[in-house]
């Protein structure tokens, strides 16, 4: 394990300081798992009472400030730091309150909870990290943690305005994480993926249109000539426009998708009822993007949205499915390149992996040389990390915390590369004494860690000219 002083950092801050706080990630994961297993047993409700991901996550400052890292919690919230608006942000009632009449409507419930605070907030005392050991993630210990309720209040304030300042929302998520209240993450993700427009008046109409749009795709993209035979068409037809041909191709596609859907979060009972929804989402996506086709890994990128959105007070899953589709579609705009065929080193995932290698070379030349000597290539470990946004590397609650930070960036891949480099650097001491097989096993079975610490290291690597220059053994 990397321990205090285990490696030396040469840093000249290019952008400054950093407010960091951590959450009880491991405890959060256990709570989450327990909550979800109970949920599966009951199978009656779609929301766990206290957000499973109650782990009170990292806090990362976006930019600016004065050098150095502060450990654990930021000082009691100073809105002026977070927002260009006055500290006591005026919170006038919105001109038109959304209709809360339908309790089954996810977004109505979310809006209601967000604005009225009537949802009992899952109050989790923040537990400052005891494991921020390395220089990179070190910070002061003096600042008291922000109370979960305060964070929730900040979120409410941000979301209460008639036009949500999405940049401020990004800053809030970045600095303090998403509050544990069940409404918070779904709503934040809707806004961060631009599925919901900033203007709150447009929320309901947008949702109505998009959800209807999704379900019309579901209906229209499936052909079944057994029910409505077409004159002149027949099951053996190979014609391009043959419905029978399309029908058989679709059957094959569904088999392909289903095989991976069955293998998506197989250990998570709460995901079982979401499998049909995931299959439809992937089917619609592939039908609307025929040149890309279905690629393994897409299932892992769509599943977190379903998991997150279904984790609210919802009775009707159809809205959850439609919402998840559009958010998945939104992140795929950037991720398509990582799934497209690449037969050269300068495009697609191969390019991402080269850039990852280059970043590692800059940030930790000794480790990169060690890898080069052993023949370890980013294609061996980075491909899965990048394509899946680390979904295979950590427990789901930790992954969702990582995704919070990924989604705050408009371009996610550059930030994800920093997180990947942080992962490697975090275990560099172990890697440096391992042979090829030992390194591969470590990288492909990444040891459990505090993801907020990872994010702190990644942020430190990004915002300053940090270079790991030598190893100081214990």
């Amino acid at each position, binding site marked *: 394990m990397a321990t205090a002083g285990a490696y030396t950092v040469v840093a000249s801050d290019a952008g400054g300081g950093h407010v960091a706080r951590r959450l009880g990630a491991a405890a959060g994961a256990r709570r989450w798992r327990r909550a979800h297993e109970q949920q599966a047993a009951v199978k009656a409700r779609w929301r766990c009472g206290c957000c499973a991901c109650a782990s009170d996550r990292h806090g990362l400052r976006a930019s600016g400030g004065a050098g150095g890292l502060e450990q654990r919690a930021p000082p009691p919230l100073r809105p002026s730091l977070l927002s260009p608006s006055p500290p006591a942000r005026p919170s006038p009632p919105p001109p038109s309150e959304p209709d809360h009449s339908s309790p089954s409507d996810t977004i109505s419930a979310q809006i209601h909870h967000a604005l009225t605070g009537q949802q009992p907030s899952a109050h989790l005392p923040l537990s400052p990290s005891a494991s921020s050991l390395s220089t990179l993630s070190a910070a002061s210990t003096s600042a008291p943690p922000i109370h979960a309720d305060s964070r929730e209040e900040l979120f409410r304030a941000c979301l209460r305005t008639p036009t949500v300042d999405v940049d401020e929302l990004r800053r809030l998520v970045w600095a303090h994480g998403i509050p544990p209240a069940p409404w918070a993450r779904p709503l934040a993700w809707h806004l961060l993926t631009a599925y919901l427009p900033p203007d709150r008046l447009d929320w309901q109409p947008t949702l109505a249109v998009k959800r209807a749009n999704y379900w019309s795709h579901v209906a229209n993209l499936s052909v079944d000539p057994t029910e409505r035979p077409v004159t002149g068409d027949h099951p053996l037809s190979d014609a391009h426009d043959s419905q029978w041909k399309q029908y058989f191709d679709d059957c094959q596609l569904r088999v*392909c998708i289903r*095989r*991976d859907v069955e*293998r*998506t979060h*197989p*250990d998570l009972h709460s995901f079982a009822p979401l499998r049909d929804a995931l299959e439809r989402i992937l089917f619609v996506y592939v039908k609307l993007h025929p040149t890309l086709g279905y*690629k*393994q*890994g897409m*299932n*892992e990128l769509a599943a977190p949205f379903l998991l997150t959105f279904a984790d609210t007070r919802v009775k009707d899953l159809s809205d959850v499915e439609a919402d998840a589709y559009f958010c998945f579609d939104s992140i795929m705009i950037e991720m398509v390149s990582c799934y497209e*065929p*690449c*037969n*050269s*080193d300068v495009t*697609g*995932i*191969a390019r991402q992996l080269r850039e990852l290698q280059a970043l590692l070379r800059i940030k930790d030349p000794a480790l990169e040389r060690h890898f080069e*000597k*052993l*023949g370890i*290539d980013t*294609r*061996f*470990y980075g*491909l*899965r990390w990048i*394509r*899946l946004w680390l979904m*295979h590397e950590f427990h789901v609650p930790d992954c969702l915390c990582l995704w919070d930070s990924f989604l705050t960036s408009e371009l996610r891949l550059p930030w994800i590369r920093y997180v990947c480099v942080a992962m490697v650097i975090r275990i560099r001491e172990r890697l440096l*004494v391992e*042979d*090829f*097989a030992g390194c*591969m*096993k470590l990288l*492909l079975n990444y040891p459990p860690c505090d993801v907020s610490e990872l994010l702190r290291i990644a942020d430190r690597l990004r915002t300053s000219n940090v270079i790991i220059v030598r190893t100081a053994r214990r």
Partner: protein
Amino acid sequence: MARSDDEYDYLFKVVLIGDAGVGKSNLLSRFTRNEFSLESKSTIGVEFATRSIQCEGKIIKAQIWDTAGQERYRAITSAYYRGAVGALLVYDITKKDSFDNVQRWLKELKDHADANIVIMLVGNKSDLQHLKAVTTDDASAFAESNGLSFIETSALDNSNVEEAFRSILSEIYRLGSKKALEKGSTSNFAPNATQTIVINPPADEGKTEKAKCC
């Protein structure tokens, strides 16, 4: 540092290839950890594990690379095949398509792997005899006509898994011995090993004195 249990005489890289869902990952986990899971995730990129076995008094360390069934992009797969001396080409005995695609996988190996790679055709999921869609005779005849060895396995009930890996490793060893493998080379993949023979070092290695089996 190199641990004592990492001492070995020969280091062989073996890749597991075949269509998605034929059970490659479970063959790997059954052989290296004696584990099987019905709830395994799809492989993205590559998985990796090692196990050492005894063969004719020598310790052979197998480095097994389990590749994603859908990964066909040359820029990626070339790294997985590089240096491989053996390939288990796996199909699912209950899925005719996966057997039909064996020809494509052979071409993939021909295009990207070393010309002398030892290939074994593996019909997995033999526990599902009632769903069998590829007969043993057909597969055996295909293997024979293509110069491959052949075995049917079940990672679930652990039948023939050990035999499949042992058989291909022995074959690689025998072929290597015939070519009078030079002992004492070091491997790009195992810098700590002093008793390693690399059969096919990476093409870009550029060093001399490397033993080659072929």
